[in-house]
C-alpha cells in the first residue's frame, strides 16, 4: 500500500527502533535505510554504530545521503519498496550549515551565533529568513522526489521544541525551519506518530489503544 509515515520523538525516545519495526511490519521490500548523518566526530560514529547494530538481520540496504535529497535517484533494484529516511534534523542541519550552505549564505558565523534575537542586525535576520525558505523548499522537494521512488516512505524527525530556551538567531532559524518542515511533512503524511518511551502515540492515521 502506498503510504507516507512520519515518526517523531525526543532524544532517546525509541523512535528509530519503532520506525524500523514499522517498516518491517509493513512488509513492502526492498527496505532501504537512507542515512543522513555525516560520520564526523566520536558521537556521530558511536550513534551510527549503534544504529547499524540495531538494523542487523532486518534486511535493510543502507544508503548515505547528507544533502540534496531532491537530486537523489535510487538504484533501479531498490525502487518500489520501503525507504526509511533517518532523519530530518540531520538532513536540515547539513543543508543549512554544510559547506554548500555556507557558500549560499553567510550565516553560521561565530559572531552571529553569540548574539541574541534582540540585538541581531536586520540584514542577518533577513538572510536567515531567506535561508529558512530556501531550506524548507529544498527538503520538501527531496521528500516529494523520494516519495515518487518508493511505495512506503517512513520519515524520522525530532522533537526539539519543548525546552522553552531562547536560542541565538541561527539556532532559532534552524528550529523554525525544522518545525515548518515537520508541519508540512505531517500534512502530507498518511500516518503521524510520536514515540514516547518506545511507545507510539498515534496523532494521525491510526488510533492509540
Amino acid at each position, binding site marked *: 500500500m502506498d503510504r507516507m509515515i512520519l515518526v*517523531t520523538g525526543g532524544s532517546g525516545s525509541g523512535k528509530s527502533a519503532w520506525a524500523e519495526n514499522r517498516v518491517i511490519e509493513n512488509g513492502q521490500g526492498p527496505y532501504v535505510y537512507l542515512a543522513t548523518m555525516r560520520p564526523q566526530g566520536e558521537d556521530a560514529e558511536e550513534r551510527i554504530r549503534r544504529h547499524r547494530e540495531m538494523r542487523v538481520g532486518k534486511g535493510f540496504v543502507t544508503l548515505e545521503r547528507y544533502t540534496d535529497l531532491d537530486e537523489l535517484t535510487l538504484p533501479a533494484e531498490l525502487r518500489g519498496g520501503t525507504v526509511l529516511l533517518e532523519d530530518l534534523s540531520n538532513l536540515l542541519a547539513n543543508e543549512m550549515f554544510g559547506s554548500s550552505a555556507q557558500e549560499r549564505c553567510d550565516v553560521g558565523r561565530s559572531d552571529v551565533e553569540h548574539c541574541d534575537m534582540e540585538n541581531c542586525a536586520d540584514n542577518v535576520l533577513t538572510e536567515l529568513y531567506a535561508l529558512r525558505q530556501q531550506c524548507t523548499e529544498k527538503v520538501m522537494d527531496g521528500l516529494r522526489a523520494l516519495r515518487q521512488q518508493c511505495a512506503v516512505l517512513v520519515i524520522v524527525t525530532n522533537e526539539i521544541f*519543548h525546552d*522553552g530556551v531562547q536560542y541565538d538567531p541561527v539556532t532559532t532559524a534552524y*528550529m523554525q525551519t525544522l*518545525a515548518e518542515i*515537520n*508541519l508540512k511533512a*505531517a500534512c502530507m503524511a498518511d500516518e*503521524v506518530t510520536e514515540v514516547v518511551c518506545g511507545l507510539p*502515540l498515534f496523532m494521525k492515521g491510526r488510533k492509540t489503544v
Partner: protein
Amino acid sequence: MELYIGGAWQGKSACAQKRHPQIEWIRGSACTWEELCRAEGILGLQEYIARALDEGTLPKNFAEKLFQANPELVIVCREVGSGVVPLSHKERIFRETTGRICTQLAARCSLVVRVTCGLEMILKMI
C-alpha cells in the same frame, strides 16, 4: 475556557484560530492584565508571563483570578518545561511558573488541546 499548548512553532495558534475564526485575539507580548481580563483570545500567554515576572506585576493566583475574571477566554501557550534546568534564576522561575499556570488553567478548562506538527491531540474535553 480553552487551552492550546505545544512546543514552539507547532501550529498552536493556527489550530485555535481555526476553531474560533470569529473572535478577536490579543498577544502576550503586548497586553496588560486588564486587557487579558476582557479579551476573547490570547496568543502566546508565555510572553505575558515572562513580562509580568520581569516587571513584578504577575497577579498572585494568576490562573484562578483569570478564570474568575474571564471564564470564556481562549488561551494559546507554549510548553516550555522539557529542557535542562536553566542556569539563570529568572529563566528557572519563568519555566516553572508557566508550567504551573498551564496546569492550573487546564484544570479549569472545558477543552485542552496539545498541538504537535500542526496536529491536534485532545487532552481534555468536557
